[in-house]
């Protein structure tokens, strides 16, 4: 019994190490590209990277900003990963995130100021997830019923949602001369700075805990429940899932709804935790960056939290080095990481499979005639 437990632990470690291989290679490649780009500005890579770390993990304010960005990226990363586990590409986190933030802000505006804080926060969270989920349901139902590519539908829906939200804010809800709504009356989540003075001034707030809870929840749902078991089976082998009595289209639909809900949840970071209103473009780019987060986190909720921290560090670090090289250096690095992971993962998997096959010749001796 104990040997099997230890071999299981070994297996887990080995799998984790194998899963890490491609992302680590990708980050290394991005660093090399970064070096070259820094050199074009005549700066020393070491200085720039040092400054980047200094401005993020080197002081409490910077670290607070990293935590703030980690929250949203965790949510959009979870969104991409959750759909990805079902074999779908949700490229619509950008719009779902905005829809979630908008719904939370709208509810916060509407709720009476006297609403008990916990209730107000829970209601706003529910509103954010429901709005994101509804935005995810559209591509979900189009895929499940009509076989429409969820990639294209989510991309197009991003433009539609953002335009509609912008219209609603600009024409009906905004404070004059601004692009944001009025401040909410209820549903505030306190900033970390109010509890830990060192974070004072940074946008970091307690919604980061909610993001971590969401990651744990996603992990539990994917790996500890029947629906997660079915969802992953659909993603890995739809024919086997169908044989196992799993309704494939319905599973796709549910996966897209949950995926959208995770993205929508990310909207509360800015709205409940930071500014307390909805503002046009409040988290522009975070939706697409969620793809990077999920890829590097290998679609695993725990990996995603860590990877969100990495990408948040890069984002914030870009600001820190802006004096030496443009902060867009980081945008390039992020894109290089996505390209490298997307390229390395199938390659690494092929290599691993080849080496595994070499170890277990019996498993592959079935070549037919």
């Amino acid at each position, binding site marked *: 019994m104990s040997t*099997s437990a230890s*071999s*299981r632990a070994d*297996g887990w470690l080995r799998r984790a190490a194998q899963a890490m291989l491609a992302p680590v290679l990708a980050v290394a490649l991005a660093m090399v590209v970064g070096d070259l780009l820094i050199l074009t500005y005549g700066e020393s890579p070491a200085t720039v990277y040092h400054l980047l770390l200094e401005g993020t993990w080197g002081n409490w304010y910077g670290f607070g900003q990293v935590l703030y960005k980690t929250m949203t990226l965790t949510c959009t990363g979870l969104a991409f990963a959750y759909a990805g586990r079902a074999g779908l590409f949700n490229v619509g986190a950008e719009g779902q995130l905005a829809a979630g933030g908008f719904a939370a802000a709208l509810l916060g505006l509407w709720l009476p100021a006297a609403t008990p804080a916990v209730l107000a926060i829970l209601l706003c969270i529910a509103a954010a997830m429901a709005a994101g989920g509804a935005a995810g349901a559209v591509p979900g139902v189009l895929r499940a019923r009509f076989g429409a590519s969820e990639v294209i539908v989510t991309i197009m829906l991003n433009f539609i949602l953002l335009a509609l939200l912008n219209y609603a804010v600009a024409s009906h809800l905004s404070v004059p001369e601004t692009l944001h709504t009025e401040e909410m009356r209820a549903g505030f989540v306190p900033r970390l700075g109010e509890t830990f003075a060192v974070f004072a001034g940074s946008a970091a707030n307690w919604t980061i805990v909610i993001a971590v809870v969401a990651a744990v929840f996603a992990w539990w749902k994917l790996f*500890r*429940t*029947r*629906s997660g*078991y*079915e969802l*992953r*089976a659909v993603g*890995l*082998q739809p*024919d*086997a*899932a*169908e*044989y*196992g*009595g799993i*309704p494939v289209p319905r599973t796709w639909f549910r996966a897209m709804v949950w995926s959208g809900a995770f993205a929508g949840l990310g909207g509360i970071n800015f709205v409940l935790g930071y500014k307390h209103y909805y503002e046009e473009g409040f988290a522009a780019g975070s939706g697409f960056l969620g793809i990077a987060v999920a890829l590097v986190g290998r679609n695993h909720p725990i990996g995603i939290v860590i990877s969100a921290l990495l990408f948040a560090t890069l984002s914030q670090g870009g600001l820190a080095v802006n004096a030496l090289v443009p902060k867009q250096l980081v945008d390039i690095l992020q894109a290089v990481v996505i390209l490298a992971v997307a390229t390395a993962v199938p390659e690494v998997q092929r290599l691993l499979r080849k080496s*595994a096959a070499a170890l*277990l*010749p*019996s*498993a*592959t*001796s*079935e*070549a*037919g*005639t």
Partner: protein
Amino acid sequence: MAVRMSQVSKRFGAVQANRDVTLEVASGEIHALVGENGAGKSTLMHILSGLHAPSGGRVEVLGRDVTGWDTNAAIDAGVGMVHQHFMLVPTLTVAENLVLGREPTRGLQLDEARAVADVRALAERTGLRVDPTRTVAELSVGEAQRVEILKVLYRGARILILDEPTAVLSPPEVDDLWTVLRGLRAQGDTIIIITHKLDEVVAISDAITVMRDGRSIARFATADTTPRDIARAMVGRDVVLALDVKHAAAVSSRVRTDGPAALAVRDLSVRGDRGTRAIEQLSFAVQPGEILGIAGVEGNGQTELLEVIAGLRRADRGTVHIGGQDVSLLTVRARSDAGLSHIPEDRHRRGLVLDYTVAENLLLGRQHHFASKLGTLDHDKIARHAEHQVKTFDIRPPDPSLPARALSGGNQQKVVIAREMGRAFTVLLAAQPTRGVDVGAIEFIHARLRAARDAGKGVLLVSADLAEVLALSDRIAVMYEGRVVCLLAAAQCSAERLGPFMTGAEHAVAS
């Protein structure tokens, strides 16, 4: 001699697909290459058409040594193969499919008019009539096949290889094909046709080479032989699987016919993937305590039958009952709960999620029995279940946390068997249960199937391996073109008796 292959061998890793095969085909003859599934016929023809290089031996075409040539060289020398699976672009027209890669041009442009005219002339000359301007997607299966043959002829082939050309054709389409092939022969072309349907062999061929287990067994002149001789050479087992009387007696007392049938199928009609009828008005019943074996060449409706019974495909007409309960409208899961177990024919595609662990695979289809009301999976129960099943069914290595992908074929199949047989069930669909499995696992699986029968379960065994069907079944039905053409007690069956039914040489006998 148009083709002379001598001592040809071919290995794929550990599998010896061909060994010391001899094939001689005279110019201007139609030569049938016959044998059971996996006898090595397709591999041999892939070598001849340049798709594979042989591991040993010599290949001569029209007296020239061409051993190890590639497809382009083969095409240039006039050897063309029509593959079993259509290789046509459905959105292009017939003419476009034909000229693809060798387009006639006028300046920079594709000369569409000439392509159409050339194709029309070729179709006229060969009798393979098909309108060159139609889109391939609109064609019937028979027409698509004509296009495939035209494609080879357009490239100048004088030696044609046809791999199971009639597998997807209806009888009148088959007759048309024979007319065309005879016409080509009359023009001096040489044709090699792979088949395992004996009626076809007799109808069309001039000479026959029989293959078995990767070897060439016999060469006949068609005029001097009978279907029974050919069948004997094809099946070839000297062992006569005569069941003794005691066993037959045991059969009758074990099978229970007082209660409802374990599985009853009535008047089932099903459309196949191509819209043609895959199953026609099929009815049969499996009683508790009996193994009903379905023999037959693959592609005669077995897959569709299994999928309909399992709930994976809709029937056009007819009903399915399990243990007396009508399950015709139920989902896959509800049928499973009604007592249906299913060993699917393709374990890599359907039977296993290869990246799931053994433990996870052991609950596929039963996952709702391992979850709490809240939907949480009970991991202790799953682990206990897995440990127990791994032990009971001797799955090796005995580690439920390994991904199914890492197991050998036999042990992968044991996982499927453990899942489907390690629980309460009324009827078991066992499709190709020992395909790609080592000898030890075959024995184990056969023992399990007999044990299930003895425990009063109904078993529907579908296998392309006739010996397996003969060894295990109490009754045997032969499926041919979507119908049961013969249903006999196993004691009355032998390979010699069933062969003619499987190959369509004889029709409709029911006991």
